[in-house]
């Protein structure tokens, strides 16, 4: 090829070609928000065939009532994960808050119990936040540590036996929280809906929500936008704590008892639900709609497996596989289709190795 032959060709308009790159809502973008909801819808559509009993009214009520405490904590956790951290201590928090709430109830009735739940949750969140911002412990380790500590304190408080709602309190308004229905909808689920409504506003329609997402997306950049890391951390972990406080109210009024071992492994369930919903563990993104649907999906699936008499060993296997499959779709999408198409992902699956990732 000789040195200077090419003369400038009339170029296509650059903005037009750039516009192709990422304009319309793509399949990928839709999946981000609605993917898990779509799977939930599919599952529900299949229920009449697989598990006809599922659609019985009382069963639906039971599923919704039972989802609430997981769902409410998952809403709080969505903020933590969107900010780029997660809270491993929620299991310990739930145990401790539940124990303190029952102590509060026996000491001062419903009002004190509700106040104790929210206050204890908030206090747990602030302890985490203090360790993370004040002592600079990474959130993973800080909350792993407080998971042990909160559970330990709950154990100490229940050394003489689990705290229990006495049976003669069956008529008290506190107990009603877990059992009452509002227009046929279980009260815990109503509380969960309210929590999600508020959380959605907080994440999407407030400056704080924007700042949390900004911080999760790039802590360094957020700092130079005048966003205080300390305030974000405190807010987010306090929020998780309060969500546990609210969740504990719906939990304890349904189960009536708590001690240090309550809901062992709860933290992993919550994180799995949030991630299943489409919130990225890397931070910067959060979808409450996804979390909501994921919580229901897990509950519905669990209920169907239980009602169909699937042994618990196989229930585990099914739930684990669902997690991997859902996240695989997500992983393939974010990995291959950054500008938003499944085409390359498919081509890659057919002809290995991928052009994006060699080795």
């Amino acid at each position, binding site marked *: 090829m000789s040195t200077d032959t090419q003369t400038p060709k009339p170029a296509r308009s650059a903005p037009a070609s750039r516009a192709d790159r990422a304009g319309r809502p793509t399949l990928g973008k839709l999946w981000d*928000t609605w993917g898990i*909801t779509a799977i*939930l*819808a599919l599952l*529900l559509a299949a229920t009449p065939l697989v598990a006809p*009993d599922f*659609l*019985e*009214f*009382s*069963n*639906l*009520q*039971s599923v*919704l*009532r*039972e989802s609430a405490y997981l769902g409410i904590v998952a809403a709080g956790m969505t903020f933590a994960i969107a900010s780029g951290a997660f809270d491993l201590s929620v299991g310990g928090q739930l145990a401790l808050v539940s124990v303190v709430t029952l102590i509060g109830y026996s000491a001062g009735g419903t009002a004190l119990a509700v106040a104790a739940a929210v206050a204890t949750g908030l206090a747990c969140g602030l302890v985490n936040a203090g360790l993370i911002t004040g002592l600079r412990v990474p959130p993973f380790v800080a909350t792993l540590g407080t998971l042990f500590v909160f559970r330990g304190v709950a*154990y100490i408080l*229940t*050394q003489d*036996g*689990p*705290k*229990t*709602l*006495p*049976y003669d309190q*069956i008529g008290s308004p506190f*107990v009603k929280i*877990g*059992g009452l229905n509002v227009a*046929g*909808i279980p009260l815990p*689920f109503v509380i969960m*809906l309210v929590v*999600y*409504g508020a959380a*959605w506003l907080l994440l*999407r329609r407030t400056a704080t929500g924007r700042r949390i997402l900004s911080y999760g997306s790039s802590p360094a950049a957020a700092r130079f936008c005048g966003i205080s890391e300390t305030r974000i951390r405190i807010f987010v972990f306090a929020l998780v704590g309060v969500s546990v406080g609210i969740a504990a109210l719906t*939990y304890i009024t*349904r*189960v*009536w*008892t708590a*001690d*240090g*071992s*309550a*809901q062992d492994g709860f933290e992993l369930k919550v994180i799995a639900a949030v991630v299943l919903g489409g919130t990225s563990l890397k931070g910067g993104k959060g979808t409450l*709609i996804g979390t*909501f*649907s994921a919580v*229901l999906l897990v509950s519905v699936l669990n*209920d169907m497996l*239980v009602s169909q*008499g699937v*042994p*618990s*060993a196989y*229930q585990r296997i099914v739930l684990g596989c669902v997690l991997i499959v859902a996240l695989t779709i997500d992983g393939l999408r974010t990995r291959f289709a950054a500008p938003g198409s499944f085409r390359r992902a498919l081509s890659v699956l057919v002809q290995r190795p991928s052009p994006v990732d060699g080795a």
Partner: protein
Amino acid sequence: MRKMGLLPIALAAALVMAGCSDSNATDPKTAGKDDKVVVGFSVYDMQYEFFQKMEAGTRAAATAKGWEFKLHDEKSDENEMVTGAQALIDQGVDVLIISPFKPSALGPIIAKAKAKGVPVIVDDIGGGGAPYDAIVISDNAGGGKLAADYMVKQIAANNKTSKNVASITCEPSAVYAARRNAGFKEAIEKAGFKVVAELSGNSKAEEGYKVMKDILAKNPDVAGVFSCNDPMGVAAANAIKDAGKNPVTDIVSVGFNADPEAITAIKAGGLAATVAQDPKAMGELTVKLAEQAIKKQAITFSNPAEREVFNPVALITKENADTVK
């Protein structure tokens, strides 16, 4: 954007609607008034052999009576226990038998059962102070006492002069299992022994092994060890063996439950004794009580104050190990 927020709510509403339309079709009350008696059994955790046997006994007895048997597995989770047991009641069982993972969580279940007029028979673990109709329970404290009496005898037979023994407990939340250690302690102290170490192995074999090693380091002269369950009991006996001592003739090791691994170990000289509960018989007994409850017949209680019906416990040693099925 606004639509996005509403859709899940709409979805949930649709879900509830779907439920509404169906709910008239199968009214639990009518289902309950079929000729065929339906019995629901909510079991602690089917991963454990003990409860597998209990389930087998319950199922066999119910089927023998021509009842329909519905099973629910609590999977060692109080939330699943409440949800699943309440679901059984919703499904219209005529009587509920439950071996509760957390007895203190029986309240909401029994409240729901009472509202629907379903009697509740508790099988083992504990009653949590709730108004159940009857509870079939192994005599935990009595079992601990059996273990202590045997241990005293065996220590004497071993020609040991040490008056020190150890006790390994389940997780701190297992208050009913703790009665075993309490019964053991009371009886053995009466016989002039001292419980020099009372430590938790959290019901796990791994931790039972470690804890026994710690006990051996601290009190090498212990003459016996009682464990709150067999996985820990056999593990502790293994730790004793690994320390070069004999779990029968040096340190009298006693477990609780008569799990197959304990029976195997006793036959092989790897464990001195265990306290047998008979989960199968307990299951059968609950079905008998359930029938009485449905027919509103009076139940004869071993301890009327707590509406307890004791299922006897028995000591299993090498002599009678073969008799355990």
